[in-house]
């Protein structure tokens, strides 16, 4: 796992160096900070998605949720004059509740995650559009919420607060996934849900928690996105973000079959994707190719990973065979003594 993450890190660094050589402005603090900001926004989404993917599920409604929750947040704060200190937790709770509903439908009613969240994708998008009657939700001119803005779009010593938030969340979620009992349960469920249940794990609750975590992080990210764009046209806001999140997780080594992947990988996957977007803009590559570059890199990354694994498995096989032969030679006398027993 750690080797895989290192490979990804290396790729990120190499791409960075190449871009910096072609256009040194890549390394300007302002550019790095801008990119870090977006890494923060998308990284939080990816971590949420990762929690669902680890259980063998998938959450396709992320993009629509970013739109719906973003619309609601902006509307609450800018139009309904609700205090943001109230609106923020409200939105988080809403995100968690939606996650819980998905989890319930999946674990209690045994529906497929793909189907449930596909319906979510359609329904939440429609709801967001209906809520604003297809209009845009945004802050009026001069409307300003200094504290909220500092928290969501501000910078600390030049580092965007969203990036700091990502780092904190990533550390916490890393510990939870890789060092806690809950995390181990999620891996077990992803590998073999039934066996996990037969070991006394309440798999339903665990899976539900994963969707709740995803909903919660998505809601947080939705607020950040809303404060970044400060304007949300519900028809297009957040479109395809679920694909970005899934792509980042997959690049980071998550298997959609469940039970595999690391949080570090998901974050690095996000970093690589955002670096690529930055690169397309900085190097003047036609933006029509943006998607193609992203798709190409993911495909190549996954291919290399796969080939790498295949080669390693091959090698392990050969060396194992050698070892065993040696071992057997050593042991050749043992069965005879056993025979005298």
């Amino acid at each position, binding site marked *: 796992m750690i080797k895989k993450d290192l490979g990804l890190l290396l790729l990120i660094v190499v791409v960075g160096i190449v871009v910096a050589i072609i256009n040194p402005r890549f390394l300007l603090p302002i550019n790095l900070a801008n990119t870090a900001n977006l890494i923060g926004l998308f990284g939080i989404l990816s971590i949420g998605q990762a929690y669902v993917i680890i259980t063998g599920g998938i959450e396709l409604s992320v993009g629509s949720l970013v739109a719906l929750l973003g619309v609601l947040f902006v509307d609450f704060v800018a139009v309904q004059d609700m205090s943001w200190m109230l609106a923020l937790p409200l939105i988080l709770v809403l995100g968690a509740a939606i996650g819980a509903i998905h989890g319930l439908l999946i674990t209690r009613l045994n529906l497929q995650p793909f189907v449930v969240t596909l319906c979510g994708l359609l329904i939440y998008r429609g709801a967001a559009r209906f809520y604003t009657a297809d209009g845009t939700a945004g802050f009026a001119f001069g409307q300003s919420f200094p504290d909220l803005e500092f928290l969501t779009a501000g910078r600390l010593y030049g580092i965007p607060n969203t990036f700091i938030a990502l780092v904190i969340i990533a550390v916490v979620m890393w510990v939870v996934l890789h060092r806690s009992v809950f995390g181990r349960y999620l891996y077990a469920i992803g590998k073999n849900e039934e066996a996990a249940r037969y070991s006394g794990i309440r798999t339903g609750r665990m899976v539900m928690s994963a969707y709740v975590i995803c909903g919660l992080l998505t809601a947080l990210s939705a607020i950040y996105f809303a404060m970044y764009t400060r304007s949300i046209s519900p028809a*297009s806001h957040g479109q395809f973000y679920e694909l970005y999140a899934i792509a980042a997780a997959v690049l980071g080594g998550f298997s959609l079959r469940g039970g595999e992947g690391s949080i570090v990988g998901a974050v690095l996957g996000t970093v690589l994707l955002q670096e690529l977007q930055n690169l397309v803009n900085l190097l003047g590559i036609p933006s029509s190719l943006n998607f193609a570059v992203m798709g190409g890199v993911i495909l190549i990354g996954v291919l290399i990973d796969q080939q790498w694994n295949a080669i390693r498995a091959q090698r392990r096989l050969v060396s194992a065979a050698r070892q065993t032969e040696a071992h057997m030679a050593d042991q050749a006398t043992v069965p005879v003594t056993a025979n005298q027993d």
Partner: protein
Amino acid sequence: ADKPTLAFVVNGASDFWKAAEAGVKKAQAEMPDYTMELKYPEQAAVAIQQRLMEDLVSAGVKGIMVSAVDPKTQTDGLNKIGSQTALFTTDSDAPKTNRIAYIGSSNVDAGKQAAEIAKKAMPNGGKCMGFVGLLGADNARERIEGMKDGLKGTKIELVDVRGDDIDQTRAKKNVEDALVASPDLTCMVGFYSYNTPRIYEALRDAGKLGQITVVGFDDDPITLGGVKEGTIAATVVQQPFEWAYQGMKLMAAYLKGDKSGIPANGLIIIPTVIIGKDDVDKYAANLKAMAGK
């Protein structure tokens, strides 16, 4: 590479901006000591456009002319760009930002011109159905609003506007469904550049060309063909070529320190025009010439 770069950032990929591209090219030809480019964000979304502009600023662009995806609420983002580079707006204005000037036309006025077309074509009144890509988008709203305004006090009514989320299949099906759902329609309005051709084709398939008054926007080749044929009453065209061409020159001048081109109110309006049957040939020829073909 040391030449100052000027960027024209559009709000999404669309044929509409092809004319602007030609305008940028023409300006570039006249001012070789600048690098001028036109940039498409890969999606028509605020976050992505904002990102694109931030990256351009990072890349050292000296001036940006932008058609903001959502100018009303994008204020802060635009101000951020405006504080780092010379910012102009086009297509739809963001007057409350620190942009230097706006060059473009007024969508409300364009809507009013569409009303003019309808009034002329249907002196006895009628029932109109509108079609648009994104119902919530500013340009759609302003055009619809302008048209409704212009139709006030007449017997012509804009009963409904159907959206299609820029899915052309749905755009055409919406027209077909409208023909079924409201047999008493006498006129159709295509608010986005591709809506008019879809109306044209759906009417042709249904054998109703000429029976229903079509009011168009923009200058899709099919639209111009229909106007010429007489099956489309007329179309309201903006002049993105001029926006781009004049805009680029204006920006270049501004960067050199020549601020004489900037009016006091910061508004440079290049009016939309109605292209009817009589003007269409001239307009098409002009279009071709601009594109340098």
